[in-house]
């Protein structure tokens, strides 16, 4: 038996990501997901005016700044018991959805499918098609995704002035109302993207596609017409399944979703727990039951992270973030280990769809489990849903253009106290927890989606989701472990708030 350590570094993820894997005879026996970039946002927030969070925290992440902004504004509104009018919720939702569509298209066709052009697959029958569609800067789908992901965020620019990084959600609403010009501009942006999506990504009409409800219907659809199996989704599905991604990358069975997009019908009065268009919940992987979600059950552990140690886990309202860099200890990352009900969970589009009860994803999950292909597929399924929901939102907005877009809060300053804001970013559940004392922020804790997925071991020694999704896996060529890239990228890793490198053992590199 040969045992060796390999180091894997990935590009085409947001931020840098490294894994250190222990291999025995081509089987992964231990995995460490490593984050070494530390930026200290939680410390920068201390002592600032609470509303400064609306400018500082979007800068946590360049790809999901709108979601960060939303989490921050919800936390402030929670602390101040501040309500927002329905149109503000609609405008926020529209922009959040545009950002997610941007991210999902880039993740799918700039980051994920490029791996299918790996020389390992040169002799496979799909190779030429993969190149024609997915090759960076040359493939038709790659170029289309570059172009279209660029246009969809113009909707955010219409309402927020720019993408990335604007601060147009303020306690009580948004800074600008929708007018008829915004509506027509947004519709025209959305129409063009929808047309491209129908022609290139699904090869069919959006409604036809969304009507597919079961695994049988989906597989029948796939082979029904050449336009279906030649579409980007068709191609992604066939290639994934030919190389066996439906058998890989399960990880933890527990899933978490905060629910997505506040329901405008319940806006107008402040509520502690938001009614959402897509449901919140915890899918208990042991019982298969979706339980009600309760943020009080979230804790973060630091046993294997470079923070000043504390025993067990702490809820973010008690959270401590004191850096303590110890490169030569058994601690290995700047990522904390969040747990829900003390369980390792995953978050992201697959979790969201299952918890919301999306029929097609549920049916595929029942048939084959939460594998790497399904995770990627769930993301594209979401794009279709969002395109339709965005259109509905624009129609709702245009029916009520004269309604207010902001309800100025009763007091100018956010009162002392605490609040949290939970949203669904492209990569899953994102939460901000803040406390205010003497008019200034006294504690700010952020738990990113990637923190859930890229979590290191916790104080009980339980591996995080990505780590566990790799353990037990067979790698054909440890010197070029393409499989690992497929699996990790199916999670849409975003490491800007976390991850890098360690120096031991033989260093290997993932292609591409």
């Amino acid at each position, binding site marked *: 038996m040969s045992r060796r350590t390999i180091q894997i570094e990935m590009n085409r993820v947001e931020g*840098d990501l490294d894994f250190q894997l222990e291999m025995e005879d081509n089987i992964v026996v231990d995995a460490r997901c490593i984050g070494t970039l*530390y930026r200290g946002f939680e410390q920068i927030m201390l002592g600032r*005016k609470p*509303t400064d969070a609306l400018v500082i925290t979007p800068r946590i*992440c*360049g790809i999901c700044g709108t979601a960060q902004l939303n989490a921050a504004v919800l936390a402030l509104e929670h602390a101040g018991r501040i309500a927002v009018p329905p149109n503000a919720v609609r405008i926020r939702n529209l922009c959040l959805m545009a950002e997610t569509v941007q991210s999902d298209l880039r993740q799918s066709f700039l980051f994920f499918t490029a791996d299918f052009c790996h020389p390992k697959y040169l002799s496979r029958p799909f190779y030429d098609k993969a190149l024609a569609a997915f090759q*960076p800067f040359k493939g038709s789908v790659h170029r289309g995704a570059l172009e279209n992901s660029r246009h969809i965020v113009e909707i955010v620019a219409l309402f927020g*002035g720019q*993408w990335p*990084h604007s601060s147009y959600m303020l306690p009580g609403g948004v800074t600008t109302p929708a007018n008829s010009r915004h509506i027509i501009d947004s519709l025209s942006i959305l129409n063009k993207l929808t047309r491209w999506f129908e022609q290139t990504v699904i090869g069919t009409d959006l409604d036809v596609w969304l009507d597919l409800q079961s695994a049988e219907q989906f597989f029948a659809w796939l082979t029904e017409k050449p336009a279906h199996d030649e579409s980007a989704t068709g191609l992604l599905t066939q290639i994934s399944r030919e190389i066996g991604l439906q058998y890989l990358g399960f990880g933890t069975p527990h899933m978490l979703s905060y629910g997505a997009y506040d329901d405008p019908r319940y806006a107008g009065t402040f509520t502690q727990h938001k009614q959402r268009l897509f449901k919140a919940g915890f899918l208990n992987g042991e019982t298969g039951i979706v339980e009600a979600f309760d943020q009080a059950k979230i804790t973060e552990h630091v046993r294997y992270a470079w923070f000043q140690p504390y025993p067990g886990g702490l809820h973010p309202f008690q959270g401590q973030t004191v850096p303590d860099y110890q490169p030569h200890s058994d601690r290995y990352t700047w990522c904390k280990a969040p747990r829900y009900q003390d369980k390792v969970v995953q978050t992201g589009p697959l979790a969201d769809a299952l918890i919301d009860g999306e029929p097609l994803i549920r049916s595929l999950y029942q048939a084959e489990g939460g594998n790497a292909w399904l995770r990627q597929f769930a993301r594209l399924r979401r794009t279709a849903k969002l395109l339709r929901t965005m259109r509905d939102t624009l129609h709702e907005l245009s029916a009520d253009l004269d309604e207010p877009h902001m309800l100025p809060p009763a007091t100018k300053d956010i009162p002392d106290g605490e609040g949290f804001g939970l949203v669904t970013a492209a990569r899953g559940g994102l939460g901000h927890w803040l406390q205010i004392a003497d008019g200034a922020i006294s504690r700010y804790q952020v738990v990113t989606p990637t923190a859930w997925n890229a979590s290191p071991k916790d104080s009980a020694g339980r591996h995080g989701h990505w780590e566990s999704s790799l353990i037990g896996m067979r790698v054909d060529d440890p010197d070029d472990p393409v499989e690992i890239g497929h699996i990790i990228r199916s999670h849409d890793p975003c490491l800007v708030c976390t991850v890098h490198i360690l120096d031991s053992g033989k260093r290997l590199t993932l292609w591409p």
Partner: protein
Amino acid sequence: MTTLLWLQTGSCGGDTMSILCADSPSVEELVDQYGIEFLWQPSLSAEPKKHLDTVLDAILEDRLALDILCVEGSIMTGPNGSGMYDPYRGRSKMSLIRQLAEKAGYLVAMGTCAAYGGVHAAPPNPTDCLGLQFDKQAPGGLLPVDWRSRRGLPVVNISGCPAHPNAMTKTLAMLAAGLPLELDHLNRPKAFFNTMVHQGCTRTEYHEYDVEDELFGGKGCMFFNLGCKGPVTMAICNSELWNGRGSKTRAGVPCFGCTSPDFPSDHDLFRTEKIGPIPVNLPLGVERANYMAYKSLAHEAAPERVLNKTMDP
């Protein structure tokens, strides 16, 4: 052929996301029309990451010419001057950038972080960040004040948080095409930093007549009460719109001055500091006494349509 290497240091990836939004020229055009070859770009390169090491070795051993080095993100010098809050292969990125800078035809700071330190350098600056050739306003950062790249320029600072998409691609296109690049006193290309955000803001009709908003969500000017730094900030946000569609001030968001070395300022970002009724920081170069006289006259002269805020921004 112009070779380009893009490295991320302490960053949010926002400048990469921003440049993907560029449309005039677009990133594809840089490749197709301006002959820019991306030796490495973390989000776009299809090559294995091992390729980055090959490229770095070749550059450092003078086997490969590096025309443009782009850096996105703050230079982290902590903890304790080691730079290990942001390591690469067991060493600090800080030291890697220092070495590569000696080989680069041009060194371009993409965004305020790389230029001046940026959001990560906000107090208490937990990771001890600096910019490439500035430490906030102070000249001299990772590289000394008199440092020049091989082609004779200091670090070219395309500041902004994030940098404006088209300011980035146009600068790169200019360098690739051999067009001259004139820099201002903060080493920003004048072509993009010789315009105030205030110029071209659709709220200037209100500013002109001293009609100021007290609350967000309105149509008026945000200079006196809501923290807008448009009249003291050099950037093209209102002359070359973001994503082809808008700007912060057009959408009713104050300009936070994100292209300036002191971004983000450490007092309340949504309030304007004032002496009496007049902002402490007046529009660039304006005398206080003159400004006060002008403002009271202007308010007197304001037409009804402006006083009643019937005009859309």
